[in-house]
C-alpha cells in the first residue's frame, strides 16, 4: 500500500513512545551504567571500562550456558515447527470440531508459566507423577531430578507441550486463507498430496511461519520460569539456560557489573537474530 507522507502522524505515536521509553530506556541505561562500573558497596562506583565485557566473553560459564541455550532453542524449533505444521494440516476445516480443537489447543498458552513448570513437575516426578510412573513401569530408569538426559528430555517435552499450539494456530490460520480455487486447480492437474503441500501450501505459509519461528525463537531464548520451576537449572548446571544463569548472577550473587555486561551481550544476540529475521520478512513482503 502506498502511504501518505504525514509528519503529524508522530502525534499518534507519542503515547506509545513515552510509555515504552519509560519502561525500556531508563532500565536499559541503568544496565549500561552498571556494566562499565565496579563497586565495593556503599553505593560507590568506579569506572571499569570494558573489563566486565571481557570477563563475561571469556568466561567458560557464559559459553556453557549460551551453548545450552542455543542447543535448547534449536531442538524445540526442530520439533515444534514440523509437528505444528503436521497437526494443522490434519485439522478439520469446518464443522463443530474446529472450535473444540482450537479452544483445547490454545489452553496451554494461557496457563501461567510457573504453573506450567509446577504441573510438569508433579506430572513427571518418578514417585507421584503419571509420566514418571509410566516410563519407569516400562522398565526405563527415569528420574529427571537426577539424570541430566532425563532432565533435558523433560524440559524439551514440556516446551513442546506448552508452545507447539502457537505454531499450530498460526499455520492453521495461514491454511484457512488459501482460496479453494488453488486446490481445485491442483486436483485438475492431478497433483499428489506432497506436491500440493510443497507448491501450494508451503509458499502461502511463508509469512505465518516466519512469525511463528520468530516468536518461538524469542520466547525460547528468554525462557526462565518453566525450567526454573521444573528443574531449578539442575541437576548440577545441566539445564541452566541464559536467563536462569543471569538471574543467579544478578539477584543471587549480586554481581551487578558482570550481570549487566552479560545482559547486554545476551540482548545483542537476541537482537541480531531478530533483525535478520525481520529484514528477511520485510523483503518477502516487498516481493509479494
Amino acid at each position, binding site marked *: 500500500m502506498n502511504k501518505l507522507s*504525514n509528519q503529524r502522524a*508522530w502525534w*499518534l*505515536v507519542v*503515547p*506509545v*513512545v513515552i*510509555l*515504552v521509553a*519509560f*519502561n*525500556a530506556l*531508563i*532500565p*536499559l541505561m*541503568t*544496565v549500561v551504567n552498571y556494566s562499565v562500573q565496579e563497586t565495593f558497596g556503599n553505593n560507590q562506583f568506579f569506572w571499569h571500562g570494558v573489563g566486565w565485557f571481557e570477563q563475561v566473553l571469556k568466561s567458560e560459564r557464559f559459553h556453557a550456558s549460551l551453548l545450552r541455550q542455543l542447543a535448547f532453542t534449536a531442538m524445540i524449533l526442530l520439533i515444534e515447527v514440523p*509437528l505444528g505444521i*503436521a497437526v494443522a494440516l*490434519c*485439522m478439520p476445516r469446518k464443522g463443530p470440531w*474446529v*472450535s473444540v480443537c*482450537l*479452544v483445547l489447543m490454545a*489452553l*496451554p*498458552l*494461557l496457563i*501461567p*508459566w*510457573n504453573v506450567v513448570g*509446577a*504441573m510438569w513437575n*508433579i*506430572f513427571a516426578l518418578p514417585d*507421584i507423577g*503419571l*509420566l514418571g*510412573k509410566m516410563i519407569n513401569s516400562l522398565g526405563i530408569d527415569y528420574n529427571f531430578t537426577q539424570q541430566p538426559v532425563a532432565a533435558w528430555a523433560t524440559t524439551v517435552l514440556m516446551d513442546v*507441550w506448552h508452545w507447539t*499450539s502457537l505454531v499450530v*494456530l498460526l499455520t*492453521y490460520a495461514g491454511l484457512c*486463507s488459501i482460496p479453494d480455487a488453488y486446490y481445485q486447480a491442483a486436483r485438475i492437474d492431478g497433483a499428489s498430496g506432497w506436491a500440493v503441500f510443497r507448491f501450494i501450501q508451503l509458499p*502461502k505459509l511463508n*509469512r*505465518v511461519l516466519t*512469525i511463528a519461528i520468530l516468536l518461538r525463537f*524469542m520466547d525460547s*531464548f528468554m525462557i526462565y520460569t518453566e525450567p526454573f*520451576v521444573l528443574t531449578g537449572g539442575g541437576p548440577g548446571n545441566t539445564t541452566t539456560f*541464559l536467563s536462569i544463569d*543471569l*538471574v543467579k548472577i*544478578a539477584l543471587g550473587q549480586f554481581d551487578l557489573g558482570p*550481570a549487566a555486561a552479560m545482559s547486554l551481550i545476551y*540482548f545483542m544476540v*537476541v*537482537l541480531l537474530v531478530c533483525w535478520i529475521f525481520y529484514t528477511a520478512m520485510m523483503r518477502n513482503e516487498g516481493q509479494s
Partner: protein
Amino acid sequence: MNRSAKWLVPTFYILFLMLPIYWLVSMSFKTTNEILGVFSLWPQEFTLENYRKIFTDPTWYNGYINSLIYVVINTVISVAVALPAAYAFSRYRFLGDKHLFFWLLTNRMAPPAVFALPFFQLYSATGLFDTHIAVALAHCLFNIPLAVWILEGFMSGVPKELDETAYLDGYSFWRFFIRIFIPTIAAGIGVAMFFCFMYSWVELLLAKTLTSVNAKPIAATMTRTASTSGYELGLLAAAGTLTIIPGAFVIYFVRNYIARGFALGRV
C-alpha cells in the same frame, strides 16, 4: 495421508495436551496422604478441602484479585495507546517510522531477566513499588509493541478508501476514528486484547519482582507455598487449576477470531 485417518493426529495431539492438565486437576481433589502414599489414576477419597482453603484464606484469594486487576489495567492501557499508533503506522509515512517500528519490536525481544533488577530500582524510586499500576506499566514493555504489531496488521487490511470517504463526508479525524474505524476493526481489537491478557497473565518474573504484599500475584503466592511448606501438593494443584480458568474463559469468548487473529490479520 489417508483421509479417514486424518483426525487421529489432532486427537492424539490434544490427548497429549490434556494429560498433564488432567493430572493437575485430579491431584487437586486428592488429600496429601493419598498423593504421597498411593498411586491412583483418579482421586480415591474425593476432597474439596484444597479449594476450601484457597477461597477462605485472604493471602490466597487476594492473589487472584491482584493478578486480575493488573492484567485488566495493562490490557486497557496497551490497547488504548496502541490503537492510534497502529493507525499511524498503517496509514502514514513519517520520519523514522520504520526504525521506530523495529525499536518497538526489540522491546518484545528483551529478556525480562535483563530488566528485573533495573525495574525494581526504577519503580522503587518512583514510589510505585508493590502497586498494581507498577506491574501493569511494566508489562506494557512487551504488550504495547505486540498490540501495535497486531493492530497494524488488521488496519492494513482495511481499504484506505474508507478513511478518504469519511473525510470527504466531513468527519473529523477523531470522530471518524472512534465512530467508524474502531467498529470496523473490532475483531482485531479483540485479538490484541486476547494477546495482551495472555502475556500479562502468564508472566511471573517481573510481576514477582515488582510486588511484595499488596499487589502480589497468585503465581508468586504459589511459589512461596511450594518452597516453604514443602509438600502441600494438593493445595498447589488446586491453585494451579484455578489459574487455568480465566484463560479458558477468555479463549472461549474469542474462539471464532483465534484462527484469524493468530495470523495477525495479514496472511
